[in-house]
């Protein structure tokens, strides 16, 4: 079972095969939790988001369409949407970056397998590519993607025209894509 590709496992999840769902969970829960924690800022909110996302996957696995991307991308899309929804409901805004001191350190993923080492390396490359962007571009991307802010909100926060903000987003994503294509993280189209 653990040797099967995600797409094959999703077919089994659609048929209600619990063991396949377990494998999907084990493969993607780490990065899902990491993303939810980055957005929500507290462990309890991140756990709620991940739980909702995977149960949504279990209950609606039939909606997965392999032609629209990988299972990981699909799962992380669900996690991102739910985490941003939680932020926008102000459920977690007040608690962001509040008092989960040390949790990130305690949950830091160990590097135990080649796949985990590769994933850590990939994460490092992506972070470096983001950091290499001009600050005004990386800032608008982070505020939008991890912070859940709209371009109009960001424009107000940064006291800049809306068009400027959207332009920075486009330039930033173009540069990010170019850098990650160069390192093989993103496939050229």
């Amino acid at each position, binding site marked *: 079972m653990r040797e099967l590709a995600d797409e094959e496992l999703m077919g089994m999840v659609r048929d209600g095969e619990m063991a396949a769902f377990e494998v999907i969970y084990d493969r993607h829960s*780490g990065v899902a939790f990491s993303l939810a924690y980055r957005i929500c800022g*507290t*462990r309890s909110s991140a756990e709620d988001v991940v739980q909702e996302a995977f149960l949504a996957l*279990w209950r609606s696995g039939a909606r997965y369409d392999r032609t629209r991307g990988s299972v990981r991308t699909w799962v992380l899309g669900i996690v991102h949407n739910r985490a941003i929804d939680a932020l926008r409901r102000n459920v977690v805004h007040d608690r962001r970056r*509040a008092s989960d001191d040390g949790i990130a350190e305690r949950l830091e993923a160990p590097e135990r397998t080649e796949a985990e080492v590769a994933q850590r390396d990939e994460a490092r490359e*992506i*972070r470096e590519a*983001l950091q290499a962007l001009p600050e005004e571009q990386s800032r608008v*991307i982070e505020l939008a993607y991890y912070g859940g802010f709209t371009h109009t909100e960001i424009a107000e926060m940064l006291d800049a025209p809306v068009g400027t903000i959207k332009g920075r987003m486009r330039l930033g994503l173009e540069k990010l894509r170019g850098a990650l294509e160069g390192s093989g993280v993103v496939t050229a189209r």
Partner: protein
Amino acid sequence: MSGQTEHTARSDDAAAYVLGALDEDEAAEFGAHARSCPICAAEVARFSSAVAVLPLGVRQLTAPTSLRRRVLKEAASDARGGRRTRMRGLRSWPRFAQAGLSGAVALAAGVVIGALLLAPGRGPTTLIRATVASAAAWHAAGQPVAELERYGDRGQLLVSRLPAAAAGKVYELWIERDGAAHATNVLFEPTSSGAADVDVPGDLNGASAVLVTAERLGGAKVPTMAPLIDAQLPS
């Protein structure tokens, strides 16, 4: 507006769209446009490949073991057309974080509440409900719930609703063998939500219990109080 000018503007919209940064109405309008415009559809696809890797760029953490248990338990008990899975027949119990202990009465010790999961690469997991001291023993109000998750000779103590230790104190984990509590040098504090998942170091074979006390900062060599949490291991 000429076609070229329009698509210069729309290219900016495409970036904001894939970042989820357009207002709701704008996103709906642009999404409808992109479905009929191959130029914008290509822009969306191009930017999407960059946005798709953003989740992988965050600091990578390990999802808590307790979360895995909760998700799989919920999925197993989920009503999906009456279908039964291999986990369906197992005993279910309330969500750990919501499991209530009524009043201030400690639970009976060492209740094995389920052989629940096959965690990856580590064999069957047994959950042992721990005895928790009565309310008067705790520094702050609240009634913690604690379970020891044992897999083979390893274990993890999972606690919820755990109040912060008193000022100048910290929680310390002990392993009991031959009637004596041995220091593990594991000191911990709960999260702001009262959760603590604590790995028990070393081998649990031959151990009779996993205990928690509140000790001075830096820990103690021997317990200075009766256990606040006592997870008795079946012999």
